[in-house]
């Protein structure tokens, strides 16, 4: 058995996630194969999937056209950043008429809620995982979370990172892009995946 984490690779900041995941596994002294995912036939071989930033409308369409949608729902561990977080949410505000999400996490999320690109921002946040520079790009806002969700980061009252365990499944969502500035979240995700 070898360790294998996939990064959904149709579109978005895929290389950034691949690099950050590799660096995170190096920091943890783990041997993990990090693979780009573009086809349904490798979905079942993954220990975990990372869904990058990009456009959630585009990601949904390409996954469905590839016929990997139902398979993705069965992946035990998923980490989504920005568009990826939208993909995980049960309820999405301001989605397009034909847009679907995986509906795995008990969160309500509002697309582009911080506004257009001129409202994008970065902010240093201090959280239990460490000190990180959080970059928000046309970011979504998490409006509501279910009872059994853990909040990992807030900015003032806004929840910007959270996690959920359901049975032996684990999901992690951030509204910002930790892959651009830090390995902290990727290390944390890997630790949850491999129960370290």
């Amino acid at each position, binding site marked *: 058995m070898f360790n294998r984490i996939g990064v959904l*690779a*149709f*579109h*978005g*900041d*895929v*290389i*950034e996630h691949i690099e950050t995941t590799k660096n995170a596994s190096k920091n943890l002294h783990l041997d993990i194969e990090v693979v780009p995912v*573009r086809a349904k036939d490798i979905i079942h071989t993954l220990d975990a999937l990372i869904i990058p*930033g*990009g*456009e959630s*409308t*585009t990601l949904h*369409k*390409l996954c469905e*056209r590839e016929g990997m949608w139902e398979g993705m729902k069965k992946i035990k561990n998923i980490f989504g950043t*920005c*568009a990826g977080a939208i993909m995980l949410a049960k309820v999405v505000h*301001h*989605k*397009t008429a*034909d847009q679907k999400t995986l509906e795995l996490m008990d969160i309500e999320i509002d*697309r*582009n809620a911080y*506004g*257009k*690109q*001129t409202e*994008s*921002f*970065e902010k240093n946040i201090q959280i239990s995982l460490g000190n990180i520079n959080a*970059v928000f*790009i*046309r970011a979504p806002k998490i409006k509501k979370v279910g009872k059994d969700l853990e909040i990992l980061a807030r900015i003032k009252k806004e929840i910007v990172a959270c996690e959920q365990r359901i049975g032996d499944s684990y999901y992690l969502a951030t509204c910002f*892009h930790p892959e*651009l500035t830090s390995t902290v979240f990727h290390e944390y995700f890997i630790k949850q995946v491999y129960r370290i």
Partner: protein
Amino acid sequence: MNNRLGKNLAQMLKGGVIMDVVNAGHANIAEKAGAVAVMALERVPADIRSAGGVARMSDPIMIKGIQKVVTIPVMAKCRIGHFVEAQILESLKVDFVDESEVLTPADEQFHIDKHKFKVPFVCGCRNLGEALRRIEEGAVMIRTKGEAGTGNIVEAVKHIRAVNSGIAELKVLLKKKQIIKLKEKAKEYRVSNELVLQTAKLGRLPVVNFAAGGIATPADAALCMQLGVDGVFVGSGIFKSNNPEKMAKAIVDAVAHFNDPGKIAKASENLGKAMEGQEIATLETKMATRGV
């Protein structure tokens, strides 16, 4: 002003297709097909070409109309050097400004000083020197220019290859530690030594680079991707084809699966007629030569 955040938005667009749209109906088709952003403009390049005259920034009402109907980023074009058109677009809160040779240039000497803006800029280039000059002026995204509105991919290919070979040359100089020659390159390109060195070390442009101009089929789009660009802009190629819905979706699929000929073949089936193409030699106006 905030270079970093614009650069990051461009990173999120990678692997995607950005489509020219002239009305809300087009914008809906683009979003449904899976476009990662739309470029709002009054006429697609093919129509700008046939109309002649001076082409300018679009009516703000038209841009606002597009912003209302889509949830993906909206870009808009201003003329080269026309910083007031850029200010207007910024005030409209477009997500990206394209300082574009498809419109008639407003300044023959200077491009816009893009550092003064909060909105990010994408600019065209035909070679590494042009790309690096635009980056130094503050562009956070580059598109290699094809000949817009022609449905002919040849110029796009030429310019992607020109950028690639420029970078390859820098890599060799760095490998041989020929720092003086790298500095001479910086002088030739009229940019800082740091930018040339950074590009040599990265082995690619330090910002996201899309292809643009002349893409008319899924195969054209995949060709550009295999030549190394991060994504594509499609202008006239979609809405001047016989079946825009199908063509839009097919190009999105071909870009997502650009290394998989079987999937590109499938995307290419039954698309109907692609846009009418033009020989470059017969053109009255070459847009790509604008703004060097």
